[in-house]
């Protein structure tokens, strides 16, 4: 309970010196648990034991890879001297995923600083037949960034150089291990913003974002990474460096190979650097939180919002009443408006506060008058904007306080969107602590989460494959933005055709004939 302790200290110190800086005190007292702390606080939350993946999934077979020897460690020591970690206690955090649902038993962590070092490491592993798993901020949600068995972990932590920023074109070039929030602060100094934003921004690495084709709350405005990434440098499993580091917006010369790495989840190589097109940072930001009675009401508001806010709309998120209760009970965040079955969060970003506010209040006035919104509030002050956003962004963290979290991230046609939550709730009656629905309704992306005090095979069997069949029937996607990783790879056929998966396998075999790159991930086991 670190957080409580800090609050108390802050209170005591403020009491002692009531005249100390009010600003500093407020920052200390109110900003606790900001996204930056998300990672660590959740980790410290429970020291409960996490089952080894190989034990929880007994049918799983280790691939025909070599086993690490002392001679290997010595060789790696020559490549990345002083950055070879074998101490089991230090490896623990790298072996376990953030959700504490899977745990590998890797004996080795390497922390390269340069592309050349990554190339040397992979070349060695390729020759020896050692399997590897690349890892960024380890904030993945499908068990894709931690070892399944004893794969060597290659962390991008020390690859955190920002190489250049062209203020005119807005092109950022950086190494793969840069933390998203750090990059956003950096480009922010030039009035630019990163084209993606997500709850884990304080921990996640840009390389991991690219490898998983992370979505997040700004996708509605700036589109997917397939559009904003201009170039990628990656090391192939053989150790060869693939240079696709273009900084050009337009470049139609042959196959666009970088696209293959976006969303490849580390199965084709390790992304070491990227160039990204950064849009102008909106100087005026406003956030509205609305309550409405039905999910159809959420969709009606969405339609109206697009019509009236058009180009300044940056995010349109929804959460249900179970989500609001969750964040209230587990994180003690209070709901600023009256209780409603559904909540909508609208963010606008533009260049003129007065214009944007006029548009936004026009919309809100209309929604209230027509009875489309039951209640609501509008925030233009940063503090309040952050407080409202944390209701939505800290849901993932709040879920972990319940114990085990069964996490689903699906794309659905809006007509069927919320029905899935209703059906799951009915199906899991008595078998789950709660079933909550929230997500990027503007992108047709639902986050459905189920919790129980601990992992239960019975609950799991009720959820899977039912949920995937349900989504497939609606022609949705079983993974909208989290990827397949380890946990969802066997359901790939629910969303992709046999011919598509066959071609994926052929590509994988061509690029990684020995299969050492992040095995047991993305592609189905059979």
């Amino acid at each position, binding site marked *: 309970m670190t957080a409580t302790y800090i609050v108390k200290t802050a209170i005591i110190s403020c009491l002692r010196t*009531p005249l100390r800086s*009010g600003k500093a005190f407020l920052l200390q007292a109110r900003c606790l648990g900001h996204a930056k702390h998300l990672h660590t606080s959740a980790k410290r939350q429970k020291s409960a034991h996490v089952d080894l993946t190989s034990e929880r999934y007994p049918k799983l077979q280790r691939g025909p890879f070599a086993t690490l020897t002392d001679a290997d460690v010595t060789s790696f020591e020559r490549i990345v001297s002083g950055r070879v970690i074998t101490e089991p206690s230090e490896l623990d955090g790298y072996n376990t995923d953030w959700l504490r649902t899977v745990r590998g038993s890797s004996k080795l962590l390497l922390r390269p600083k340069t592309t050349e070092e990554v190339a040397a490491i992979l070349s060695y592993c390729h020759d020896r037949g050692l399997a590897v798993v690349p890892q960024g901020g380890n904030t993945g949600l499908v068990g894709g960034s931690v070892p399944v068995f004893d794969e060597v972990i290659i962390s991008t932590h020390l690859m955190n150089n920002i190489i250049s920023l062209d203020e005119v074109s807005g092109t950022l070039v950086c190494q793969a291990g840069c933390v998203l929030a750090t990059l956003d602060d950096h480009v922010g100094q030039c009035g630019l913003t990163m084209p993606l934003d997500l709850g884990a921004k304080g921990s996640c690495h840009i390389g991991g974002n690219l490898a998983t084709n992370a979505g997040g709350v700004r996708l509605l405005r700036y589109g997917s990474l397939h559009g904003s990434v201009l170039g990628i440098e990656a090391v192939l499993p053989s150790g060869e460096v693939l240079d696709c580091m273009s900084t050009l917006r337009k470049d139609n010369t042959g196959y666009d190979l970088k696209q293959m790495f976006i969303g490849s989840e580390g199965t084709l190589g390790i992304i070491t650097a990227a160039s990204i097109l950064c849009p102008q940072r909106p100087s005026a930001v406003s956030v509205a939180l609305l309550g409405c009675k039905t999910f159809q009401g959420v969709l009606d508001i969405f339609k109206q919002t697009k019509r009236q806010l058009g180009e300044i709309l940056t995010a349109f998120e929804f959460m249900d009443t179970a989500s609001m209760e969750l964040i209230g009970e587990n994180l003690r965040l209070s709901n600023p408006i009256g209780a409603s079955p559904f909540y909508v969060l609208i963010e606008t970003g533009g260049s003129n506060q007065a214009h944007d506010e006029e548009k936004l*209040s026009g919309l809100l006035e209309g929604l*209230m008058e027509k009875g489309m919104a039951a209640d609501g509030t509008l925030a233009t*002050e*940063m503090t309040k904007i952050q407080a409202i956003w944390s209701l939505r962004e800290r849901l993932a963290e709040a879920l972990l306080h319940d114990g085990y979290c069964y996490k689903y991230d699906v794309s659905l046609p809006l007509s069927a969107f919320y029905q899935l939550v209703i059906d799951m709730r009915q199906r899991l009656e008595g078998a789950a602590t709660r079933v909550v629905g929230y997500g990027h309704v503007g992108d047709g992306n639902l986050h459905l989460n189920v919790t129980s005090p601990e992992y239960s095979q019975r609950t799991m069997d009720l959820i899977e494959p039912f949920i995937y069949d349900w989504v497939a029937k609606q022609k949705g996607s079983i993974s909208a933005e989290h990827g397949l990783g380890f946990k969802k790879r066997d359901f790939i056929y629910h969303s992709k055709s046999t011919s598509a998966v066959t071609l994926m396998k052929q590509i994988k075999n061509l690029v990684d004939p020995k299969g050492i790159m992040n095995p047991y991930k993305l592609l189905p086991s059979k």
Partner: protein
Amino acid sequence: MSGLRVLVGCKRVIDYAVKIRVKPDKTGVVTDGVKHSMNPFDEIAMEEAIRLKEKSIASEVIAVSCGPPQCQETLRTAMAMGADKAILVEVDPATYEKVQPLHVAKILAKIAQENKIDLVLLGKQAIDDDCNQTGQMTAALLDWPQATFASKIEKTDGELKVVKEIDGGLETVTVKLPAVATADLRLNEPRYATLPNIMKAKKKPMDKKKPGDYGVEIVPTHKVIKVEDPPTRQAGQKLETVDDLVHKLKDQGLIPS
């Protein structure tokens, strides 16, 4: 006795989530194009005033702000929270840099007298200059009792019982009305203005005045010599082993060798 008439000071300050930048000539901080909001302690004072009104202890809540025209937004926010009306004492941006707590206290005292105010509620300090003077000065000018750093306010017959947090415990003071009280952080948690109230606030009355209307001339009584960034913290050093640490501490003479 009819309800209290409450005057609440609402200073417009740089939002506390903004990273403050010092002007290159060290005369102050950069305010242009920077997000501003209501001083958080004033927001707490406003919340308390509205709660008094909701309990029918107060009959009218008036918000007041001294500063540039943008203070209107701060006052609209105050009215959206629940203030009945607002007074903007407008000061042009150049003159505003010279405004000091004594000027504001004089203006507040005058407004309190003119409007037959029973209770002046202010934040204990503003987070920009951290002066913590305006409440005390206002009380002195009016010759009213003061209850500063309030963490709890209760109305008893003709008196106000105020609890404040001090070293080692809580202190309770009672003051006769009319009085001046200033709000500490834990007095309450301010509400979010709801949409219907934001809309209603647009139609609430806002008086525009000048310092001269209250006989106050903005002549600074003290001079700001310079404004500087706090010293940057020296980067720490990571040591590999406990032995290294012991060695280092000995080298620095921090532990006996």
